[in-house]
């Protein structure tokens, strides 16, 4: 078998698409993405239909989607191996953006997460997820270690993740930071870590937890944690959101209350119902049946993503697509588990359903990269 390494052979990636490319073009992820986004907009119209601050937000979301499609087109025209060349450039420019956010970011709800370019507001921490995955893929691309990584091997990649995570925690945006950490950890587990190292890191984590709790968390974050462990502690305060969200989901029962008839969201009992708690709006109005369908679509989407990773023939492509899949997975799992009350409240959006431009663009870029990998792997 003669595989060509894009790197070592000085292979010039082709630009543009050819007719035969189109014939066997893998549309699956793009179609699934469009279906999910369609559900998202439909649901967002309901969630922002009442007289609240979210009124008319779906229009903005549509604009972001159009922008995302343009970027998808650009990504599809290039070859993914380009990413490998500019991996560190992407990573460090994103890091600079994160620093800029802290210096001159716009604040919303007490957190500095945005920087504005004119009327455009972007959230660099969202893009950091993909940047980090690309950076990791690049870092491990040419590494041939067998038998798992030891502690010393993990120091540098650990640092590459710790710096952005630290910057994001400073914003503070615990949700995004957690997604980064989860994605990194699951990637490392996939790549293989020695059992002894794993045990040691685990031990350190247990020991560090109280210190992080004491010094690393903000007051409101501690509140959420306490209320999660003891739901009766503060029904009106920190636990209120969790309770209202569970009421919303549960009151949907099997068939749901009907489109635009979810009282929990329509009457504002549901907090943040157009962003982090969007799933509660959906499950209140469409019930268990609706949720089953949505979960199934997400599952198909993830497995399609994983199959791209599985069938990719070089390590960089495999790691990048795997990382992107893991990002989606953690978003979906953490968000749903949080909304259902299985996890403490952390701000993690649900891909394609939650309102938010940067998150949508990131999710779409992920699909674009995956589709790119799916369609360029057989080219020589």
């Amino acid at each position, binding site marked *: 078998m003669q595989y060509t390494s894009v790197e070592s052979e000085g292979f010039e990636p082709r630009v543009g698409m050819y007719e035969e490319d189109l014939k066997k073009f893998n549309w699956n992820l793009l179609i699934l993405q469009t279906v999910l986004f369609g559900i998202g907009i439909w649901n967002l119209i309901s969630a922002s239909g009442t007289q609240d601050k979210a009124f008319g937000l779906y229009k903005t979301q549509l604009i972001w989607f159009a922008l995302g499609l343009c970027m998808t087109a650009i990504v599809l025209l290039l070859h993914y191996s380009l990413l490998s060349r500019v991996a560190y450039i992407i990573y460090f420019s994103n890091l600079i953006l994160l620093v800029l956010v802290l210096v001159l970011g716009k604040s919303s709800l007490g957190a500095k997460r945005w920087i504005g370019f004119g009327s455009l507001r972007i959230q660099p921490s969202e893009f950091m997820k993909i940047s980090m995955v690309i950076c990791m893929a690049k870092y491990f691309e040419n590494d041939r270690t067998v038998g798992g990584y030891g502690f010393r091997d993990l120091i540098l990649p650990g640092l590459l993740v710790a710096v952005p995570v630290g910057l994001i925690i400073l914003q503070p945006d615990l949700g995004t930071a957690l997604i980064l950490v989860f994605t990194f950890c699951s990637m490392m587990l996939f790549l293989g870590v020695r059992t002894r190292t794993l045990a040691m890191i685990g031990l350190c984590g247990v020991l560090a937890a109280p210190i992080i709790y004491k010094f690393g968390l903000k007051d409101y974050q501690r509140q959420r944690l306490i209320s999660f462990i003891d739901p009766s502690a503060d029904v009106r305060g920190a636990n209120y959101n969790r309770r209202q969200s569970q009421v919303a989901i549960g009151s949907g029962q099997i068939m749901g209350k009907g489109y635009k008839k979810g009282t929990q969201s329509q009457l504002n009992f549901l907090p943040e119902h157009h962003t982090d708690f969007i799933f509660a709006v959906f499950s209140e109005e469409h019930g268990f049946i609706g949720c089953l369908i949505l979960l199934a679509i997400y599952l198909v989407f993830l497995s399609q993503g994983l199959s791209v990773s599985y069938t990719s023939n*070089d390590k960089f492509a495999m790691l990048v697509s795997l990382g992107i899949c893991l990002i989606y997975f953690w978003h979906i799992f953490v968000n749903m588990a949080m909304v259902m009350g299985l996890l403490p409240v952390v701000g993690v959006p649900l891909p394609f359903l939650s309102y938010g431009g940067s998150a949508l663009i990131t999710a779409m870029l992920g699909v674009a990269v995956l589709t790119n990998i799916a369609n360029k792997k057989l080219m020589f």
Partner: protein
Amino acid sequence: MSFLGQEQQVREYQHRFKYLNVGLAIAFTLLLIQLLNLQVLQGDSLRSASEENRIKRVKIPAPRGMIFDRTGRLLLDNRPAFDLEVIPQYLKESKLIDETVTTISKITKMPTQDILKILNRAKGQPAYLPVKLKTDLSRDEVAELKSWQIAMPGVSVEMEIKRTNVYGDLASHMLGYIGEVNSTELPVLQKNSARRYKLGDSIGKFGLEQKMEHVLRGEDGEEWVEVDALGRRKLEKYRGRFIAESQGKKANPGKNLTLTVDQDLQKAAADAFGDKVGSVVAIDPNTGEILAMVSRPSFDPTEFSRGIPSSLWQSLLANENKPLRDKTIMDHYSPGSVFKTVTAVAGLQERVIDENTKFHCSGSLRLGNRVYHCWKKEGHGEVDVINALTKSCDVFFYRLAQKLKSVDDIATWALHLGLGRKTDINLPRETSGLIPTEAWKKRRFNQEWTAGETLSVAIGQGYVLTTALQLANTYASIANGGTFYRPFLIKKINTVDGELEKEFQPEVLDQTRLDPKTYELIKKGLWGVVNHPNGTAYAQRLPGMNFVGKTGTVQVISLAANKIYQKCENMKFRQRHHGMFAGFAPMDNPKIAVAVIAEHACHGSSGAAPIARAVIKTYLEKYFPDQYGPKALSEKGVNPNQSLQIKGVEDEDVVPGIQNSSMMDDEQDQPPEPQIKKPEE
């Protein structure tokens, strides 16, 4: 580093995807289980939790009953008051703050700075709570604001019910006022009433509003409304979607009262009072119906109904003429000479005197080592009971008292006629007054009664204390020949549909038929007071109406002997004598009995009697025009409007050297607080 190496590595990694698939399956199963748990297992209970969230029970306040006078004129009404409110959040969202404020300022003539100041002060509270910009808008302002409303989001005109005393400060003490129930009243109400009260409810705090709370108060209704998370009521058009219309309960308005008082009489009394301080009570001697009941100075309870400005409340409290006290029943006074009629009744009924009994008045009477004076230094000479009443001779009554077995004889008759006890009129805070007996003094001071004290009591001084209402009762009892009717204010109770719920009938509290001779003599004596040229109130006679009565002048502070005869008008206002008058008319078939207390008016004759005269004249002219109307009287050849000021009439004065218990009694309880607005910065 070889290509093969990467390929092998990729192969090896591909084996690991099965773990990923397992992880994915576990995660999604977990989510599925929780979904099943919430939506299927807990579905029912969480559905009802979501219902409880959004459906709130809202009170529909029931209007309080209205109060009418005996002729059906509305005295106490529920009138709409319009307030201008702004919801800051909508104002902010509309981005039209400047335009809106300018428009409001133009319509209401409030300076823009004031409006902005109020809005700024409200910044501490949640922005969705309405802020009151102006209360009691005029009709024009309401109309103009309504026409501008579309252009001003967040601005609204809200209606509230204002308990309105139609005649301003007239009859305010009798009608009373309402206020927010406070934490000390609440437990009492909850225990004693079948109705449910809670903090924030308005209840009657004074007067009929308080006493008849159980009748005037309606039953609040309730409705189920859909609210959002902020408690804001959902708009009407959204509601049908969620709510079954049939739920809820209508509000049941309170019952209406028709009083026994006549508004014209009230007005005549208040007009006659002018800016004098005191009270007047007029009673129908044949039933006990109260025809007029006025206490001055007064207040306007309308200002209380939606929260009284703190400054106004403080000024009412600080006013030394006590506008918040109902002087007809809450304050008791030494009756002075007005009481002599009772002493005369006691003397005649106990048969220690008769029409032939004459005593010599030399201006004073010595008892032991003390001298008891008559108000007239040079004395009245020989006087019989009729003359004694007419001229208000003190010595006659001293001598009469000395002939009685004890002061208890006076007390017995005073009680029979209506003094010294509460009448249980339909008003709260009635005081019982005081008619002393030997036993009472023993109990109260653990001292023996002295003969001198009996002399003081005989002329209505010493321990004797009476209210205006009691004096009116007493003269009503005398007028009808000895029957003491319970005074009552409420003629009937009607439901809001006009159905008669209860009608009140006269109730006899004490029946002691006076001897016809006693009755005749007393009436003659009282006739002389007003109608004999030597009478103390001759200037106030009503020709053709046979108005009779008795004056009294009561010292309010002990004065040094050299000051006692100085001219009352030259003294400081609060040291001047009280003027008293009680009487009835017409003499031969009494229709109305009146008692007047004019604080610090110096004389009973010129200070109090004119008020009684005005009330009696108004009443007889209105209700018996055939006999006493101007036409009827001029046919009889009398002109009731002739000038009555006749020079040279003796004006009774205070009796030197006697202390009254009213001088010592200065403890007064605070009036109950209505709802008071927070003082403005």
